[in-house]
């Protein structure tokens, strides 16, 4: 069975994004765990906070919401969010690529679906709804 060109590309981009994101997630976690880079909240203090609802946790730790964590880089606890962002951006990159392929095939319904999906993902990622 022959795969379509855009399915091959989607699979390739998905594999790259998943590997990169997963590697970043795990590497940054061990950096945090073994205190290789100073964290914002040391893991030894976390048991005091992890049972709190997120609102109380944010108030108690002064942790940031939205993209505020970027300003706290390279603190090792927020370094982990780089991996999360790579995982989250993978589908966005895949859809951006799909638009080109579907437009080349003049498959306008699927171009519209791609644009709508990108708009939804970009809105969620931007944090403007939060």
């Amino acid at each position, binding site marked *: 069975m022959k795969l379509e060109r855009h399915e091959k590309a989607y699979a390739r981009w998905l594999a790259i994004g998943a590997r990169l994101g997963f590697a970043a997630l795990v590497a940054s976690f061990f950096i945090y765990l073994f205190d290789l880079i100073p964290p914002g909240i040391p893991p030894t203090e976390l*048991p005091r906070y*992890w049972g709190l609802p997120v609102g109380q946790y944010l108030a108690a730790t002064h942790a940031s919401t939205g993209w505020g964590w970027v300003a706290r880089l390279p603190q090792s*606890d927020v370094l982990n969010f780089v991996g999360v962002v790579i995982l989250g951006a993978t589908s966005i990159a895949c859809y951006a690529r799909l638009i080109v392929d579907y437009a080349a095939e003049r498959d306008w319904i699927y171009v519209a*679906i791609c644009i709508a999906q990108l708009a939804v993902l970009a809105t969620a990622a931007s944090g403007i709804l939060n």
Partner: protein
Amino acid sequence: MLDPTLLPWWAWPLLLFAVTFLLGIVAVIGGIGGGVLFVPIVAGFLPFHLDFVRGAGLLLALSGALSAGPSLLRGGLASLRLAMPLALAGSIGAIAGAFLGLAMPTRVLQLSLGIVVLAIAALMWATRHAGETLARTPDRWAAALGLSGRYPEASQGTIVAWTVHRTPAGLAAFAVIGVIGGMFGLGAGWANVPALTLLMGLPLKLAVGTSGLTMSIMNTSAAWVYLNEGALLPILHVPSILGVMLGARFGVRMLKRIEAQTARYIIIAVLLIAGGRSLLQGFGI
């Protein structure tokens, strides 16, 4: 909820790893995602708040779906064309669900989680012997979107043609599944597959693969909301992702030795216990 001072801080991620390793084994043998077991069990029996457990549950499901996606597509076991419109409906629902879940009081959320988990157990019980009722002709929407194709059926060594019907109902179902998945961090495999097979008439094997692909997009949407709301704790989600992924690999090896139906009964029992525990927490017991 357990007292976090019962163990030194470093023992909790290790315990989490051990628990999720077992969940990964059971989940892969039973053919469901890890998120649906992870959230009620970890929130019910370990000292982490439900907000962070739901965020971790979504990342767990997302990592699994992203890892499996490429090989499912390359093997022809998932249809990107079918996944795209369903994922669009599902991801809008997932974002709405994530906001709804983060705005709800913890007690109400625990109570609702208990009800949903018990309903999932009932759904698994009701569909345990459900056969395939394949769609023969596409409905108008499926025809317009070109939702048909072929996939390799390795067990018969043949190429099987597929299409779907009841597409509008399928889209609505995925939107609802998205809301529930985003609200409780449950992933969506537990509902995607029955929606694709029983409602839309897709062959089971293709439904499992396509469900994984839609999950990678739906969970991405909700995961962004949890990240932006500050509801992710690396000490919770990284050991869990590692545990479930390694457990799933181990589970694949055990697949030959344990019958899927037996694993399904184990999962139903675990869901009943976890759902009951969540209900009790919701009632403050």
